[in-house]
Every structure is written in structure tokens, then in C-alpha cells.
């Protein structure tokens, strides 16, 4: 592992901004790839500087996923687009029950984008990859004309190895399964909203952006019969539970009082008229586990610092239409449904 230079390796005097030529296949692009991407991501497969990474398959089943990252602002309390681009794909692999091994990174850069900012993003990706124990082994860079992009878009694809023979997904969910939640809700959505300068919302909330591979591994290693895993990104906990219930055609019942939401997130939600159940997270997941293994699974999660606040929040009650109900603060039940779109701040 090399030492990271904190200053941008491409001197400002050379090219302080991304130019079309950085995607043009010539000397400038070559310098960008070599000095920035290969030096920061630092691994032998990438250093081979070939058209693709060639490696030996770990054997057994593989998980393969991709996601594209567009976020405004690029940097927000608790994370940035780079950390998101790594963790998001790592987490999608983890939700397949896979151990993430390799990642690709595709950059779409807008002409004029600051080289210094790109370096900060790339450094953040490198750090997130190290934290998740994964290598970024191949990539691509394109530059679009000024005004044709939003600074930077990142796509990552990820490959993970599945070392067990369990089938993890909505089809494996059974009546009686308990639903575990790995931590408190709503930090990412509120942190990003508050970071948008045009919404003058003051908040101390930091994004929960984090890799989930370790907690998922701990859950699998505990021997608990894990039936399904879902990270709680856009649409939040509510949409994830509704999706799993509808796909498995098993009804679910949640208890709102066991779902943790920090006070700063709650106050922001009260102010905006948001329901934290639908606010996005980037470091939380729900797990569907056989009822008899509930306490074992819970203990495995609570033993890790990042999932210490894990809790059992509901059960799959029995075959049905996949309806989801939640017992609220007053102990009364209500139905919950997917929202038709994003939550919008209310008038009063």
C-alpha cells in the first residue's frame, strides 16, 4: 500500500481543470489514469494497465452488481460521492450474501471540473475500498462538454464471492421470519438535504454511509438462517419491507417503537413533514432471519461497533398480499404503502 499524497498529483499549473482531452485517449488521459487513478487505487491488477483485469475465479457462485452515483452536493457531512460509489456497490454485493472482491469504476467528468476536487473524490474512493477490503481493478474515464454533465458521475460495478450455499432473497422469506434492523434510520437523506445550500436547513446530522460487508459476514458466520437482506437506500426501510413482502407474498408487521431514529433526524423530519421510514440510508440494512435464530443473529450484529444498535423490528406474519402494517406510537396499527415519489418538504 502506498502513502497517499494529500495534494493533487497533477499540478494545478499543468491542468487545474478537466479538459475534453482528459478523455481523448492521448497523453493527458494517460497522465490522469496513471498519476491519479492507478496511484490512488494502487493494486497489481489495475497497475497492469490493460484493457481489463484478468484474475482467477474464487470458485463457487459469484454475485455481480452495478450502480451509478449522482449526488448533489458532492461532499456532505459523513461522506461524499466517492465513498458512496464504493460503499453502495459493496453493500449491494453484501445483500446478496457475497464477500465483495473486485470493483470497477467508471467516471463521467464534465469539462471544467476541478482536478483538485476529483482528487479528493478519488482519495475517498481509495479509502472506502481499503476499509471494505476490496480492490478497484479496472475503470473508464469519459469527459463530456461543459454544461452536459453535473461535474462528476461515477458508475461502479462489483464482483463478490459466495462461500455458502444459502439462497438469500425475497423468495426465501418465510412466514414467522423476524426482521432485524442494523441501526438507526434516516441519517443519509437528512444529511444530504441539509447540505444542499438552497434548502436553508440547519442540522448536525452526518450520513451513515458505510460498508456493510463485515456485519453481513458476522450474521452469516453466526450460523443463523438468513433468508433475505436489503440495504435501505432510496425509499428507506418502508419501501424495502414492502418490496420484500410483495415479492414473497407474505404480510409483514413492524413495531415503530423498536425502530431507532436519532433526535436530530426526528426533528428535521418533523420540520419537513417527512416520515423517517421512507428517508434514505447508506449504511443500514434489514435482515430476514428464521425466528428460532433471532437472538443469535441479533447478538452477532450487536457485537460489532457499526451495528451495536441493531434491533428486532417486526415479523412476517403469514401468507397474504404482501401487506405491511406498523404498530405506531400509540400502540395502534396502520397500513404502510410505497410513496409515489420523493418526499417533498411541506408548507406548514
Amino acid at each position, binding site marked *: 500500500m502506498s502513502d497517499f499524497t494529500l495534494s493533487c498529483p497533477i499540478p494545478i499549473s499543468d491542468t487545474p481543470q478537466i479538459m475534453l482531452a482528459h478523455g481523448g485517449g492521448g497523453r493527458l488521459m494517460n497522465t490522469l489514469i496513471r498519476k491519479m487513478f492507478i496511484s490512488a487505487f494502487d493494486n497489481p491488477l489495475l497497475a497492469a494497465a490493460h484493457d481489463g483485469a484478468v484474475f482467477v475465479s474464487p470458485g463457487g457462485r459469484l454475485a455481480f452488481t452495478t450502480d451509478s452515483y449522482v449526488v448533489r452536493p458532492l461532499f456532505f457531512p459523513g461522506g461524499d460521492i466517492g465513498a458512496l460509489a464504493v460503499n453502495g456497490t459493496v453493500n449491494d454485493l453484501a445483500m446478496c450474501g457475497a464477500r465483495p472482491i473486485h470493483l470497477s469504476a467508471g467516471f463521467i467528468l464534465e469539462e471544467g471540473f476541478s482536478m483538485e476536487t476529483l482528487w479528493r473524490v478519488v482519495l475517498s474512493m481509495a479509502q472506502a475500498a481499503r476499509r471494505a477490503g476490496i480492490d478497484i481493478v479496472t475503470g473508464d474515464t469519459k469527459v463530456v462538454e461543459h454544461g452536459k454533465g453535473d461535474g462528476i458521475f461515477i458508475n461502479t460495478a462489483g464482483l463478490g464471492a459466495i462461500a455458502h450455499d444459502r439462497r438469500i432473497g425475497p423468495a426465501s422469506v418465510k412466514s414467522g421470519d423476524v426482521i432485524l434492523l442494523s441501526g438507526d434510520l434516516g441519517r443519509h437523506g437528512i444529511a444530504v438535504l441539509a447540505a444542499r445550500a438552497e434548502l*436553508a436547513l440547519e442540522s448536525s446530522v452526518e450520513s451513515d454511509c458505510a460498508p456493510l460487508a463485515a456485519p453481513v459476514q458476522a450474521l452469516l458466520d453466526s450460523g443463523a438462517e438468513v433468508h433475505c437482506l436489503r440495504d435501505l437506500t432510496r425509499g428507506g426501510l418502508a419501501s424495502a419491507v414492502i418490496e420484500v413482502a410483495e415479492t414473497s407474498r407474505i404480510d409483514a408487521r413492524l413495531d415503530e417503537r423498536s425502530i431507532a431514529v436519532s433526535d436530530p433526524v426526528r426533528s428535521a423530519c418533523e420540520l419537513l413533514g417527512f416520515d423517517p421510514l421512507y428517508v434514505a440510508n447508506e449504511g443500514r440494512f434489514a435482515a430476514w432471519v428464521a425466528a428460532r435464530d433471532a437472538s443469535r443473529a441479533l447478538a452477532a450484529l450487536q457485537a460489532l461497533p457499526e451495528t451495536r444498535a441493531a434491533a428486532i423490528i417486526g415479523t412476517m406474519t403469514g401468507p397474504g398480499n404482501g401487506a405491511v402494517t406498523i404498530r405506531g406510537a400509540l400502540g395502534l396499527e396502520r*397500513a404502510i*404503502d410505497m410513496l409515489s415519489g420523493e418526499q417533498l418538504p*411541506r408548507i*406548514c
Partner: protein
Amino acid sequence: MKYIDEYRDPQVAREYAAALARVATRPWSIMEVCGGQTHAIVRFGIDQLLPQGITLAHGPGCPVCVTPLEVIDKAHEIARRPGVIFASFGDMLRVPGSRGDLLTAKAQGADVRIVLSPLDAVQLARDNPAREVVFLGVGFETTAPATALAIAAADRGNLRNFFMLVSHVLVPPAMEAILSSPNNTVQGFLAAGHVCAVMGWRDYEPLAKKYGVPIVVTGFEPLDILQGIYMCVKQLEEGRAEVENQYSRAVRREGNLPARELIGEIFRVVPRQWRGIGEIGASGLGLRERYARFDAELRFGVAGVRVEEPAECMSGLILQGVSKPQECPAFATRCTPERPLGATMVSSEGACAAYYRYRRAAAEVSR
């Protein structure tokens, strides 16, 4: 969370429900005026705690719901003009006009921005002197002080590029319209706590007297609402028709005097169209003559836009408490939050949307 959890205590809620069951000897129909209260009632299941015979009618107090179609169409038309930045509260963006909503206008290239306060729109105008910034000034007496403050700030700063499309509405005239209707079934009101925090409750005293209805100024948390219902039922049972204040931690009889003065300085009372209900005399606020230069209708020449409501939508009856959402033949079939016929299905505080969100799945399960 402080000042929230105390008002959501399940034990105290059940005690209130039990007390209510002891005082209620007859069926009563009570209307909560405000959409925020409707939302809390459905979300927390407060109506499930009420003794049989006590029914809640959901009132017209959702600003998103009652903003007339033609205002949305005017907003749409202004937002699409070149050089305009159109600023609005978030939940107005999804309200459909006859030509689509503001999110559609944004997708087609209009510069539409969400702001949390009208003052943020004034700041947008300062920051973008070459653009014309238009704010959609809607809402009840609750938002009127903030929009008045925005006009005052724009006036003080001599801003020439800030405009407002004003469609403010007032609660007491709407309550009177409901009470004087031959269809009226409402016997008591929970008045909207936040509106009264601004305006006080003097305007409600003649209504209580003239129509013989109890009016209880009520807050928005579950225990507030339960206590408000209890106070209202107690008055009905005792044959009283007074204005009482449940929300004493926020509301005084005279309201917030500086806020009222500011509203009076900037706005005058005008007749106003209510979506689904029609025109109600002296039920809205419009800019005074001396602030007419901020009037977006005049600046952009859209004052003449008139639009008919879709015939099938019965949101007018719902807003007056005459019908419940699920009694509408189009509810959850031809009218959904994705394809709303009327605004009560659009706003998160609209009665139809609240029923769709919290009750539809429950109804399917019980079927």
C-alpha cells in the same frame, strides 16, 4: 424527543379515550379543520380510539388541497417563461393543474426551486439580479406572516426582480361557508392551532355564537387532538357553544400581534376561489395596492386564466366534511397519488392521500 414524545404517550391517550367514552352519551360529528390534524389522526389511528358515535369530518384546512386549479396553471405558465426562477414550498410541486404540475414544468426545462421559507426566495432574487424570481405564496394564516415578511424585505431592499403569485386563504370564512351550507352535518370544530397562534381566536367567537357550535383551538400531536375532541364533546353534551383553547402552550386570544400587523400592512382581504368548493367572499388575502409591483399576476399578465375542475372529483364534498374519501367511486381506482383527479389526493395532508396511504392496505387485508 422533547415536546413530542410527551404528547404521544399511549397510556395517557387511552385515559383520554376512556374519559371521552364517559362524557359522550350521544353521537356527535366533529370537524378538524387542519390537514395536519387529519394526517395525525389517520397516522396515529386516533379515530380508532374514539367511542362509537363520535365521528371526525376532515376539514378544508390543507393549503395544497384548496389552492385552485387556475393558480397552478398560472404558476405553470410563469415558471415556463425564459429567465424566471420559480420558487415554491415543496409539496406544491406535485399538485396537478390542467396542464400538469410544476415538477413536469421543471422536467421540461423550467427553473423550479424548492424553498423552506419565502425569505429564501427573496435571497434568490438578491443572488440572481438578472433573473426574475417568483414565489408561490399560498397557505392559510399560518404562512401569511412569512410571505408578508418576504414582501416587506423585497420592498425594503428595493428589489425589482422579486414577485409573488399570491393565493392566501383564511380559515373563518371557510368554516362559515360549511356551517351555512344546507348539507352541513358538523356540530363542533377543532380549530387549527397554528392558524390561531398567528391570528388568535376572536374571529371564531361570533361563529360559535351565531351557529351554536363549540370551537376548540387544538394542537397537532395525538394527545392535543384527543384533548381537543374531549373538550368539544363535553361542550356539546353540556349544551355550550364557546371558543375554548386546548393549545394553550402556543395560542393566546389576541394571537401574535406583530405578525397580524404585518399581514394587515401587506395584504388586504379579497374574495378567493377554493378548489373543489368555489368562490367564498372575503376568504383570501391579496397584495395591497402599494405592493402591486410585486404581484406576479400583473407582471406576467396571467390574471385572466380560468380553468374548470374535473367533473368526477368530489374533493369539494370531502373538504366540507360531507363525504369520506372511500365513498368516492374514483378513490384508489381512477384517482391515486400517481394520477390524482383532485388536490385532496395530491397533498400529503389531503384527506384522500391520508386514507390512501394509511387505510387502503388495511381495507384490502380485511376484505
